[in-house]
């Protein structure tokens, strides 16, 4: 028993692909990871904007119109969707970790809820920015 097994260990196979049927629970969980990575990437835009604002009025005048353009707005709105989805998804993992909602039906409703919740928050943000 004390000997370390140096070979013949079963490797867990990479299942995504032809061996694994996409499900609401797994796909929504994978999207938590993807949205987390997107938030990481888009944080560069936020930090760049903050740095431009702190640098000088000239630098701010150069960078701000890019962030405030329709494309910049679209990117930030995507960021809002991803951040909200990620937060709701992480909340679902916390709920699971505490031992609740271990039920396929409830888990699937939570998956739909994460998608709807993120879309609602992004939509409200869009309306709020149109109004201002």
């Amino acid at each position: 028993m004390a000997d370390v097994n140096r070979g013949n260990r079963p490797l867990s196979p990479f299942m995504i692909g032809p061996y694994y049927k996409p499900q609401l629970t797994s796909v929504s969980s994978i999207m938590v990871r993807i949205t987390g990575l997107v938030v990481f990437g888009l944080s560069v835009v936020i930090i760049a904007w903050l740095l431009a604002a702190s640098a000088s009025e000239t630098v701010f005048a150069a960078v701000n119109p890019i962030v405030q353009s329709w494309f910049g707005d679209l990117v930030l709105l995507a960021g809002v969707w991803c951040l909200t989805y990620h937060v709701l998804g992480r909340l679902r993992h916390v709920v699971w970790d505490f031992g609740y909602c271990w039920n396929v039906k409830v888990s699937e409703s939570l998956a739909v809820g994460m998608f709807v919740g993120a879309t609602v928050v992004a939509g409200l943000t869009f309306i709020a920015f149109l109004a201002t």
Partner: protein
Amino acid sequence: MQRFLTDRKRATGLGSGRAGTEHHWQMLMSSLAVVIAAPVFFILFAVGLQRTYAEVLAWFGNPFVAITVAVTMVVILRHVMFEAIEAAEDYVHGTLGQLTIVGITWAAYLLMAVGLFALARMAL
């Protein structure tokens, strides 16, 4: 040859990784922190966004706004750094995997440093 790894040693302690549930706990706490930090950061940042240069400086120059944005920004960046490291551990292997993890860590701390520098410069 003498066996240094006894049965007891293998069975007790913090598992083969010698980290126990540390990482799981770290992600759990980071997730809860980000659930609070994300909406706070989002609101404070969104309010400061569509403004003139002077208004932006005044908004982020407010000590409450500056400190809260700084803390929530670090919480979120630290969390997505863990997310990215976990993704790298899962999908990028070997030397490239190790270098990817180093790169992710480097990028995350650089972003934190630049963000904190910008906020401090506006607030002071």
